[in-house]
């Protein structure tokens, strides 16, 4: 499945139209991560934020925006890093099918 996707040098989807839940799961599995309900909550938040505001937050803004929308505990770095150990902002965007944020290259 992954081989058929059009991805950039960082492994991010070039076209969001190729995104499906199974694509996200396959990309995560390829990174050694099994997506749980908690992951999906963040991923869906990322997509909704991008669709509504046409904006990609940086790491600090990301935490703030999650706090505001999903509650303080979920916007904390500890919580987010537990879900995405290699970088919450980068990998939440990756599995959401969004572009790589500038600070994550």
């Amino acid at each position, binding site marked *: 499945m992954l081989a058929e996707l059009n991805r950039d040098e960082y492994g991010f989807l070039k076209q969001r139209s190729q995104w499906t839940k199974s694509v996200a799961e396959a990309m995560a599995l390829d990174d050694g991560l099994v997506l749980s309900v908690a992951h999906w909550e963040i991923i869906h938040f990322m997509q909704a*934020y991008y669709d*509504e*505001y*046409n*904006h990609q*937050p*940086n790491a*600090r*803004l990301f*935490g*703030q*925006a999650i706090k*505001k*929308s999903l509650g303080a505990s979920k916007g904390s770095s500890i919580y987010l890093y537990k879900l995405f150990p290699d970088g919450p902002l980068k990998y939440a965007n990756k599995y959401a099918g969004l572009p790589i944020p500038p600070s994550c290259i």
Partner: protein
Amino acid sequence: MKTLVFVIDKPLHGNVRAQEFLDMAMMAAAFDQRVLIVFEGDGAYALMKNQHADVIGLKNMIPVLNALAIYDINDVLIERESMKSRAISEDQLLIPADILSRCDIKSRMNAAGHVFSF
């Protein structure tokens, strides 16, 4: 906590600096500073409805303005004199903004820790 004023005195589209400028404002709010956004001069045009930046292939900045509230940036001011001289009425504004006189905006700025422009 400082009060930081971000003055938008140019239209938002056609200039990537505007995008980076709004990032600065959001970042200031994320650092728990009190943020005030002021639209004045030709910046008043930035708040008008019916903008379609995608027609010329640019990033649409209007949704980004809506994101300000997420970071608790709720103090958005627009100068009454700038609106009047540009024939902009309140019902043409995209996001809620307090319409204040030049003098009132000036005194808000005077009380600030710093005023940013782009």
